[in-house]
């Protein structure tokens, strides 16, 4: 190999630059946010694990079934019934949007546009508490 020294040094510099973001941020991952559900209810419409991983899929199915097919009642795996509505069902329990939806969405850099139209729940207690601080 001609100019082996230069080439190897070049490769090393290249590797250092390419992996810079990884080792620069190693060990500094921010802790996942603490979510406040804001309800005493123990069980969401499906299991917590499913809701955590797939609530967006469920909401999309609800949206399509309600708007396109006129089906508004959801019977979950254990036979309990719910009205399929983000604004009138979900937010009745998840009443603290900024401490629940937003915290996690901000953490994972997700930007859903649900609330452009759907009216978020009123969070007056929270606002009052914040102004006290």
């Amino acid at each position: 190999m001609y100019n082996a020294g230069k080439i190897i040094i070049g490769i090393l510099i290249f590797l250092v630059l390419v992996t810079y973001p990884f080792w620069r941020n190693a060990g500094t991952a921010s802790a996942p946010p603490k979510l406040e559900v804001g309800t005493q209810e123990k069980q969401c419409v499906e299991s917590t694990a499913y809701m955590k991983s797939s609530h967006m899929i469920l909401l999309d199915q609800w949206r399509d079934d309600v708007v396109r097919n006129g089906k508004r009642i959801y019977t979950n795996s254990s036979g309990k019934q719910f009205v399929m509505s983000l604004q009138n069902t979900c937010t009745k329990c998840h009443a603290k949007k900024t401490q629940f939806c937003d915290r996690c969405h901000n953490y994972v850099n997700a930007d859903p546009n649900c609330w452009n139209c759907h009216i978020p729940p009123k969070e007056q207690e929270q606002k009052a508490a914040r102004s006290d601080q």
Partner: protein
Amino acid sequence: MDSSRRFFLKIAGLSVIGVGAKPITDVLAQGTKPKTEPDPKALAGRRWAMVIDHKKCLNAKEGCKDCVNVCHQVHNVPNFGNTKDEIKWIWQTSFEHAFPGNENPYINEYMKEGLKNLPIMVLCNHCDNPPCVRVCPVKATFKRADGVVMMDYHRCIGCRFCMAACPYGARNLNWKDPRPYIKTELNLEYPTRTRGVVEKCNFCEERLAKGLRPACVEACKEKALIFGDLGDPKSEIREVLRRNMTVQRKSHIGTRPQVYYIL
């Protein structure tokens, strides 16, 4: 290991059966699957339609806008304060605008006098042959089996083809974010719209789904708005249509509008 071709084929055959059985056992292993259905309380109709009895409407007190106000309140309809951006689901217009075909040079002055100051309530006609549905490139607007011409605001891209296609001017675009312009008390049970979507009357499908009649129909003290199912021969609306001479707006253009007028 001594293996014959025959033995190999046997094993291969058995494994194919095994792989094929997997989905079947999966289905059997699952308990009750979640399912969705319409609300049993919902009003069911084969063809929703409306009659506007204009004689009764004229009996109301001067400048009565009960139907408009209640509709725009329950649906969070914004008021931008200028006619260019105006959003309206149900509104009042003059006779020559509502029935342009019926205003012709042969109407004499005495008849014209009667037509002047004859405001007509107009709304989306929920056509049987809706041109807005035909032109929508993303199927954001569609006709349901019960005749309601509906908007799926999630899908609308704001291209305004439907506004150009609608011969009744029943559709309006939100040029700006409508939230700050909702002058009425916000109805927290119904969404608002967002910038860049077209909106219109939905025959109160969210109320039909709960077993309620449209808000405008319930708000009218003169009972000038009659809502019902054309598919049911015993319904009130069919009786009204049997007993009265009714007209539709621009019926000659073939949209088959389903709002009928008694003038």
